[in-house]
């Protein structure tokens, strides 16, 4: 099993009486930020114990590392405007709240600092184009940042929490199962045959697989979270060995930062205890902002990452081989290859049709079609 990133699994959950902190000023934060707080507190973002300080941000931007040289590529920032809380100053503490997930967390304000949105966007997303969703988010951020440690005091139970395993829990699970090498697969879609091929190819060489869908904010037209989870439950029930595959969700927002985000995704899975992480073509990409294999190449900059990337290039069904293949194993011409088109599968499902079994397992398609509205509207 991998050691936690930075050497120690962070646990910032402290049960306090709400009366102990009742005097503190409150700062309502958006749901994405509140998910960051939860991920810091339960160790998903280890070694972070809070929102980044100025020197850490500068180092992440320039070096893709925290100030202490630990690999870290996506800045975890808390932005605010002066009018959010009057007279806020370094050394104070505030209560972070969020209505949607009932968050209550104490933040110690160790540092208040400014930042340059343009250089932040350019460094993280390699573009300043506001059509890029990550860049647009940066430009929508408030003017100041707070650096400081957080302590989670409370949060409420939410849908899918039965699948929401913390790093301590996944590590306990892997230990109980006797798994030493675990590969993680990230997803935002129901599985088609290509996904199954990738997962099982990687699984062949390790002890178990953690299927780890990202749950949270979605775009119109995306599959709904419950559809993704149900479709994987079906696939695992019919086509995976119970002793070899588990699923747990990850609540975090996609940044679409391509290569930098691939490293971030790997770090989170390392904290869950995984030793390997599957990285596909254009991982965490959007539009044409990144090259198809930039998210593979960036791993060479991090020999000290502590989790092994498992790279997959393109894969398709070859009618001549009569199997799923990739460009390393199939000698046949492209005319024999049928690509796994998410768009085509989506179109068929939208019309209530079951895709061919070359594309998607019948049981999986039937599970999706049981939902009146499988897509976000």
């Amino acid at each position, binding site marked *: 099993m991998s050691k936690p990133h930075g050497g120690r699994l962070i646990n910032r959950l402290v049960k306090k009486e709400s009366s102990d902190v009742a005097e503190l000023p409150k700062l309502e934060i958006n749901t994405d930020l509140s998910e960051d707080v939860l991920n810091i507190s339960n160790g998903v973002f280890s070694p972070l114990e809070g929102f980044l300080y100025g020197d850490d941000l500068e180092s992440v931007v320039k070096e893709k590392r925290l100030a202490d040289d630990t690999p870290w590529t996506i800045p975890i920032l808390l932005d605010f405007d002066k009018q959010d809380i009057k007279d806020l100053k370094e050394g104070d503490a505030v209560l972070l709240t969020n209505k949607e997930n009932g968050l209550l967390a104490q933040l110690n304000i160790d540092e208040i600092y400014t930042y340059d949105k343009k250089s932040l966007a350019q460094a993280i997303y390699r573009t300043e184009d506001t059509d890029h969703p990550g860049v647009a988010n940066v430009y929508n951020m408030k003017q100041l940042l707070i650096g400081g440690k957080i302590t989670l005091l409370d949060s409420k139970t939410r849908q899918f929490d039965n699948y929401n395993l913390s790093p*301590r829990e996944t590590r306990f699970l892997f230990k109980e199962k006797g798994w030493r090498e675990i590969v993680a697969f990230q997803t935002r879609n129901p599985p088609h045959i290509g996904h199954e091929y990738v997962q099982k190819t990687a699984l062949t060489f390790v002890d178990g697989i953690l299927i780890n869908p990202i749950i949270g904010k979605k775009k119109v037209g995306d599959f709904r979270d419950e559809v993704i989870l149900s479709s994987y439950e079906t696939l695992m029930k019919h086509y995976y060995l119970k002793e070899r595959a588990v699923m747990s969700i990850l609540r975090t927002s996609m940044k679409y930062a391509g290569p930098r985000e691939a490293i971030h995704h790997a770090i989170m899975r390392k904290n869950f205890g995984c030793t390997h992480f599957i990285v596909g073509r254009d991982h965490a990409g959007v539009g044409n902002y990144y090259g198809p294999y930039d998210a593979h190449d960036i791993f060479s900059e991090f020999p000290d990452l502590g989790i092994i990337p498992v790279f997959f290039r393109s894969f398709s069904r070859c009618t001549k081989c009569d199997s799923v293949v990739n460009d390393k194993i199939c000698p046949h011409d492209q005319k024999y290859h049928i690509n796994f088109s998410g768009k085509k599968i989506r179109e068929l499902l939208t019309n209530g049709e079951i895709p061919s079994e070359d594309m998607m397992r019948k049981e999986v398609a039937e599970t999706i079609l049981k939902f009146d509205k499988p897509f976000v509207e």
Partner: protein
Amino acid sequence: MTEEKEVKKYTTISIPTPLAEKIKKRIEGTGFNSLSSYVTYVLREVISGIEEESEEAFSKEDEEKVKDRLRALGYLD
């Protein structure tokens, strides 16, 4: 900025020159861009191994709760 943040971030440690030379050769082409980054990595690995051993486990009560959750998912018998 608080007092904690003003603490100097790096310090100098001496190691024997022959060892440093060996390390320099070893890290060629590995992605480590300096002797310091490699030594930091190795020491961090050693320290994290020690910390991991002393990491607090679940209490008996919490462990049973976790096991119940995992059994409900069908992941443990």
